[in-house]
């Protein structure tokens, strides 16, 4: 058993290594509960996939996080285990998955749910404070633009961000590799790109890009 990030462990189970977060809460999306751990399933959560692909971000327990595209809260539930002394502002614009999300937000004390459109950050800038970390998983054509807008508005200088990019939603006709190169380049124009890589085999035609905001 090895702790790779605060409250994130690689545990052994039936001879296999699996990713899990230490949590005093129950299962949220059907994941297994193993003692005090909740299994973190990489095919369900792109953040878990990124970690299992070997890119580990040292998320601090007291970080303030802005999470764009919270959906039903699969990834947020684990992130909430990690930042157990911090706060997650979770934005989602679609009401349906948020019903499930609200159950999570009711039980966790460090989640602030916001039913808002991430492409209009000025509508919630009187609610969300300056954050240490922005995570975005929105499969939308203008997702880069949305990422920039929220970084400008909310990310502290020196703060970090992770964006999950789906090739097909940016350009469905071009080759994924071409799209990814373009995206990384575009992000690099305004931000420091710390790392990027594919999420295969967990998520097809997806990459993560890890960035930092410099002055």
């Amino acid at each position, binding site marked *: 058993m090895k702790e790779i990030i605060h409250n994130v462990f690689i545990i052994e189970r039936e001879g296999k290594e699996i990713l899990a977060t230490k949590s005093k809460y129950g299962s949220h999306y059907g994941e297994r509960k193993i003692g005090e751990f909740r299994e973190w399933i990489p095919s369900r959560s792109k953040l878990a996939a990124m970690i299992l692909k070997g890119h580990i971000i040292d998320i601090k327990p007291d970080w303030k996080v802005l999470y764009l595209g919270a959906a039903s809260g699969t990834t947020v539930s684990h992130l909430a285990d990690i930042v157990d002394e911090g706060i997650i502002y979770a934005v989602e614009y679609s009401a*349906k998955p948020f*019903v499930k999300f*609200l159950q999570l937000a009711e039980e966790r004390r460090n989640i602030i749910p916001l039913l808002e459109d991430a492409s209009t950050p000025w509508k919630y*800038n009187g609610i969300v*404070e300056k954050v240490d970390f922005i995570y975005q998983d929105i499969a939308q054509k203008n997702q880069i633009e949305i990422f920039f807008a929220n970084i400008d508005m909310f990310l502290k200088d020196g703060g970090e961000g992770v964006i999950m990019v789906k090739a097909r939603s940016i350009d469905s006709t071009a080759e994924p590799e071409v799209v990814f190169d373009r995206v990384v380049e575009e992000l690099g124009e305004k931000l420091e790109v710390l790392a990027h890589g594919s999420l295969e085999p967990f998520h097809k035609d997806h990459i993560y890009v890890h960035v930092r905001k410099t002055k």
Partner: protein
Amino acid sequence: MKWNVWFGEVVEEDGKLIAKKSNDLVESFKNASNPEALPFNLPEVGLQVFESLEDYYKTLRKIALKVTSEKVERELKREDRYVILLLKALDKLNESINMLEEKLRDIEEVKISDTTEDFRERIEELKRLRRRIEKEIEDVITKIAPNLTEIAGAVIAARLLEKAGSLERLAFLPASKIQILGAEKSLYKALARMRRGKPAKTPKHGIIFIHPFIRTLPKRKRGRMARFMAAKLAIAAKLDYFKGELDENLAESVRKKYEELRREKDKPKKEESKQEPKEEKPKKKKKKPKHR
């Protein structure tokens, strides 16, 4: 300067920031919008009106949960009804615009006057309204039925919703029904003929015919495509109704099926198809090898 924040207002007086707590936190939370990023950090200033950071976050969370739950409930209840009504209004609007334009043309053939100018302006206004309604329908349908929209596009998704009557009803329709939604008339005609023992064909597609994946295929393949697409749309409607999250694989499988069907015809005439560049648009390619 003054900023709207979730707990009320922050004003700048003599170079100092002063927090003012509102009496109605739900209301101030809903109006916490500012054109620019705030030049201060919220919890720090908030401490002026809250006992502690703990108190600050506890209150924020409570209000956020309350406002968000209400918003979620409201959206779920009304949105599909809203799209359907907008769509019906849009149809009427289209009719009106066409009719009015026709009348205007008649008048203008006789005489152009200030009145006809005014008339034309009003029609232009209606056209702007039409564009706005179309945009609204697209926005809402993408939100309440992301999977249907991803596969079929906003227009067809909204039409399917209208024909079914609600997202709930659409979610419970079998694929075979979705396939012919909008072609009821010809379906019942065919069924009636069959009942009388006469030969008849049931329609291959209803509304979904206007989808480019079906329309651009040669006739003999449209049925297969329509059947496949309808099956995926049936799954999409269920996903949208019960889960509301986008599943990328669905639309992807429809696209693959289309590619597959499109390529299929090239087999008998290998030489000809080899000469054409692969990337070419389906439309142009289609017409050449018209065998069978």
